[in-house]
């Protein structure tokens, strides 16, 4: 099951490490990732793949200090439909 997340976070040098570690540790493989930083805010589009419920990841990401917003922007079906 693929899910695409939109994440906004305060910029910090290690932020991407934090994000990727949480994804891996919680059982979500990165399919695609795109990150841009402007004016100390990092904007990330992230597609992950896992058999686990996406809420298990989004709830953990919500707890990461510095993350301002996590939005589920597309689920598997949406991704296929737009492909």
């Amino acid at each position, binding site marked *: 099951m693929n899910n695409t997340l939109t994440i906004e976070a305060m910029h910090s040098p290690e932020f991407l490490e934090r994000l990727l*570690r949480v994804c891996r540790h919680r059982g979500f493989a990165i399919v695609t990732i795109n990150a841009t930083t402007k004016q100390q805010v990092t904007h990330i589009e992230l597609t992950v793949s896992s058999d686990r*419920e996406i809420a298990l990841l989004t*709830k953990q990401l919500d*707890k990461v*200090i510095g993350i301002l917003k996590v939005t589920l922007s597309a689920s598997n079906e949406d991704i296929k439909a737009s492909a």
Partner: protein
Amino acid sequence: MNGANFVVHALKEQNVTQVFGYPGGAIMPLYDALFDGGVDHLLCRHEQGAAMAAIGYARSTGKVGVCIATSGPGATNLITGLADALLDSVPVVAITGQVPTHLIGTDAFQEVDVLGLSLACTKHSFMVETAEQLGPIIEQAFEIATSGRPGPVLIDIPKDIQVGPSIAYALAQLAETQQPLNQAIVTEAKSLINGAQKPLLYVGGGVGMAKAVPALRTFIEQTQIPSVCTLKAIGCIEHDSPYFMGMVGMHGSKASNLAIQECDLLIAVGARFDDRVTGKLDEFAPHAKVIHLDIDAAEIDKLRQVTISMTDDLKQVLPAISVKPSIEQWQQHISEMKVTHANRYDHPGEPIFAPALLRQLAETMPADTVICSDVGQHQMWVAQHMFVDRPENHISSSGLGTMGFGVPAAVGAQVARPNDTVIAVSGDGSFMMNIQELGTIKRKQLPIKILLIDNQRLGMVRQWQELFFNGRFSETILTDNPDFVTLASAFDIPGETIVVKSQIDDALQRLLNSDGPYLLHVSISEEENVWPLVPPGAANDQMMESVG
């Protein structure tokens, strides 16, 4: 005032009076500032000991524990303690020195990427990059360590920031905000409780962390709902509360585990459905609807799908959902199970039976004694057979199961509560893992009572090898242990060895009445196992029990 002086000043602003640590090159400016800075520092004899002493300090008081180490090996030695604090949600702030900023990334002497190492074992971590950041970062670290679900926070401070000029910083006045409860969920919770025939409280460590013990006890008094607790929640409920059945899970009481399997409503309070509690998850509380109360939204539906949940402050939630159900038949059944499956202390022969010894110690020790257990069979016997009436008085490495935790945790607890008795209960395997902390006890003449239960084995692993690995005792036989009483005496700690039941009474009195530290070394049979035991992969009602 340089950066290091500023750190000490900022610690005092956070009401820190005691820190634990070990000096080294990259943290020397901070140690210079601590020399006469007005914050007491306790030198532990290994950074892991310092981290665990900070945990013991925090858990025995509810305050933040602070530990300090140098860069490189000093910082890596903290890691196990930080992981322990993360798994048990303990508010700890760790400060590490780092090589000067211009040397970071050059593989400098004693340089390691501490921020990178910290990501998996802290709630959050900081690298201070400029003097301006020092004040805000220290303030944020304490706020993060204590807010919501507490946890460890690391601050890595390069040496040039410590010796450079500081920048004044005024503490922000953070206002606590409390959201009103969702009344629709409150109503639903009360309806579920009111309609339940067999409700059960499953109480976890979050209750103590939320300082919600009084609220929980009032809830139990009002509702008379039966209860069980996790290892970390021991002490939250009075041990003689009429429908309290003790610990649940792998080595929980039989009554607790049977009640879980029978209940029709499980109210999880500050608990997280840990695998050591649930056994086979699919068969845990199979007939129960679940009300889950926990400050951490990530715990909701993580392992068990719940009927309703609330992530508000337990002190606010518990009074709001208090309603007394009509459950006389269930209460009667619980009472009968408690009697039927009560612990037994009759044990044949002269050799010492550790559960009976620990029960006797619990009945003998002064009020408000702090018990710090290590990890292994003795840890489970403490949980099963001793009793305390405050969660701050039972300190055990619950989530990480860190052998070597007991003695340094007792150091932290004794420093925090100098007027209370502190007992470290250890096993011969665990005791050797942080044996250097006897030097810390000697240095400060901390009057810690050490009860060392010695079966010349890594007992819990041996038990599993006996039960699940065909008795192939791979690397668990410790008949070459040192003479522990002689070892303690090298640190000016008096002690004695006992081997038979008739020696117990007098030896416990000497242990408890000693003015300074004391080691009571208790020799027991290697064949004593911890019962009951829910075997791996089994449901909680499939307990293995002693056949004796």
